[in-house]
């Protein structure tokens, strides 16, 4: 990675550029030129690409984009410039794995190849979605009780001491710390006290998020601080401060990125290039060995489950798997709510992409785009795990055919007419004393598996 002092100097001495010029001219124009130059196109029949030549083109286009455009530090209004050699060197030096947790629950998360036969690691939890204080521990515990889960990802506390959490106040600092200690308590109750934890989600400022680190909270050498970059090739001091804090405290870093499709990065082809570039830059700027990344959000609807979004994400994951040693860690984010039929099909479609394209680990699943309150459970992780397993051994081409069928089933091939199914809440589908899913929820999953087996070449019961 680039030395933190060097990042500071580039941020303060780089070329000045206005944010609007960057958003409206510099970035979109170069992206469109590169898509044309490298002949990167989107075909609706190829949602999961398998052309190795495409991955090579995307990788080279992404490196070129970073060298030509750089990253904008919005705090200084200056460009952080990159040198091609240092970008390639940073990728070459990636370890290809990271370690989390301690004691019996310590785990090594490893990168995977395209069409890898090994199962991606499940890193689970509601992944930032809002939970009430009442249900925070039970919901987190339900995830920790799933044996497939090897690391926890925290949620957002909706309130603290029954009060709303306001950014830039001491309340958000306390909430960030509370979120981690409650998650730790949930892992203890599940009998897995050493599970690694990635957070924090309940604060917005760098000081609040870093306050998740401390006694009985995030721990050096065990847990990870989520460091989210800004959309469209940007960072600010808040982002860089979090990265520096984690680097200097030996706290794991989870680079994080949430791209947008239809925004300043344009359509599926250009979003594919731009998102790959963001991921590559994250290793040089932030220093983590993995990238937590969401499927691109659709700019008009906010959903991530459409064919174009899956194409852009699949291409990015595959490019990273083929040309870097990065651990790609995508979020599984269905738009439909927990315990609905579409929710299951949306998870399965994303799982196929993750399994075949080379994701090292997978986050989630949440549901309802992470926007609903208390609408998540450990059963989500179980559905994700079994879906990933069903896709293992499938080629990219086979996966493409199956994923297209699944997308059609939930309506993800029709942006204008897709209907998001509302969720069931945790208390509606879980026994609150045993923290086990209801028969109704389990049956829904079993029936969906049977239906998918009957209509595709997936095998859930092998």
């Amino acid at each position, binding site marked *: 990675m680039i030395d933190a002092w060097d990042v500071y100097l580039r941020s303060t001495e780089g070329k000045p550029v206005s944010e609007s010029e960057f*958003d*409206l001219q510099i970035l*979109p124009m170069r992206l469109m030129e590169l898509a044309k130059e490298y002949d990167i196109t989107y075909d609706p029949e190829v949602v999961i690409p398998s052309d190795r030549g495409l991955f090579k083109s995307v990788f080279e286009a992404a490196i070129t984009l970073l060298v030509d455009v750089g990253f904008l530090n919005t705090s200084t209004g200056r460009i952080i410039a990159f040198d091609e050699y240092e970008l390639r060197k940073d990728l070459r030096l990636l370890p290809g794995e990271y370690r989390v947790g301690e004691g019996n629950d310590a785990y090594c998360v490893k990168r995977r190849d395209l069409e890898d036969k090994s199962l991606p690691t499940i890193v689970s939890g509601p992944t930032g979605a*809002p939970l009430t204080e009442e249900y925070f521990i039970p919901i987190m515990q339900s995830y920790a009780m799933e044996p497939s889960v090897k690391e926890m990802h925290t949620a*957002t506390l*909706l309130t603290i001491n029954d009060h*709303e*959490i*306001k*950014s*830039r106040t001491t309340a*958000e600092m306390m*909430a960030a710390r509370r979120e981690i200690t409650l998650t730790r308590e949930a892992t203890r109750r599940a009998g897995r006290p050493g599970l690694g934890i990635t957070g924090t989600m*309940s*604060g*917005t*400022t760098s000081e609040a998020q870093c306050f998740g680190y401390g006694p009985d909270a995030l721990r050096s050498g065990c847990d990870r601080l989520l460091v989210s970059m*800004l*959309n469209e090739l940007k960072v*600010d001091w*808040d982002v860089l401060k979090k990265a520096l804090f984690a680097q200097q405290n030996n706290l794991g870093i989870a680079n994080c990125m949430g791209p*947008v499709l*239809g*925004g*300043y*990065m*344009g*359509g599926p082809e250009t979003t594919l290039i731009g998102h790959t570039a963001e991921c590559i830059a994250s290793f040089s700027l932030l220093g983590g060995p993995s990238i937590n990344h969401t499927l691109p959000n659709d*700019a*008009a*609807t*906010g959903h991530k489950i459409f064919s*174009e979004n899956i194409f852009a994400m699949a291409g990015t994951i595959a490019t990273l798997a083929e040309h870097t040693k990065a651990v790609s860690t995508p979020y599984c984010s269905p738009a439909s709510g927990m315990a609905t039929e579409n929710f299951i099909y949306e998870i399965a479609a994303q799982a196929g992409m993750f399994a075949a394209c080379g994701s090292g680990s997978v986050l989630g699943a949440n549901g309802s*785009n992470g*926007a609903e309150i208390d609408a998540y459970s450990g059963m989500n992780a179980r559905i994700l795990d079994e879906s990933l397993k069903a896709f293992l051994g499938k080629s990219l081409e086979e996966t493409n055919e199956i994923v297209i069928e699944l997308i059609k089933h939930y309506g993800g091939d029709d*942006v*204008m007419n897709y209907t998001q199914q509302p969720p069931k809440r945790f208390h509606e589908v879980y026994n609150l004393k045993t923290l086990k899913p209801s028969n109704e929820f389990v049956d829904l999953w079993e029936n969906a598996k049977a239906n998918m087996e009957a209509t595709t070449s997936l095998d859930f019961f092998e």
Partner: protein
Amino acid sequence: MSEEALLQNVYDSLTGLNEAKTIEATKECIDSGVEPEKVMKRLADAMIKIGDEFNARKLFLPHVVIAAGIMDKANKLVLEVLDVAEGAGAGKIVIGTIEGDIHELGKSIVAAMLKTAGFEVIDLGKDVQVKKYLEAAVAEDADIIACSSLMSSTMPYLKDVVDLRNDMGHQDRFKVMVGGGPVNQTYANQVGADAYAEDAMEAVKVAQKLVSA
């Protein structure tokens, strides 16, 4: 050239995102005596087409923002002829992402769509302090204050905007509309907002309704 051909030039130039040609075509209409209202209508039609193409993913945000900028310039030319104040059309909106929140994209899409519908939009950007909304609304004599929040920890500031407006005695002067990922109608009701919009297209309809109320 016929009046229809002149107006079609305006439409084609704007949907083609060509600023120079749009301005030239607008001037040609004015010089040829085409009624200013017809020119504005054709500009608005072009923006509706661009909005539709954005929704259908044929165009993307940079195109919409650039088109809205071109339309602003063309509209100013027409308004000079009409000799009326800018913004006399659909209404005036002060918009921004709420204090502590740096998620700007959704707000920018809403701002662009409001412009396409003929609103005059004063975009305050991101991380906007509560008092800045009110200061801007007073200074601009706005009709609506539109606030976006993407995080549960910045949502409480939405209530502060409503409370400050009410404490200043401006509840009849400015309507407050809210939106953003974690915000919903129930929350909007809780904080006393006048309206909630789920997405950019709905924001336009809601704003039109608020102004006409």
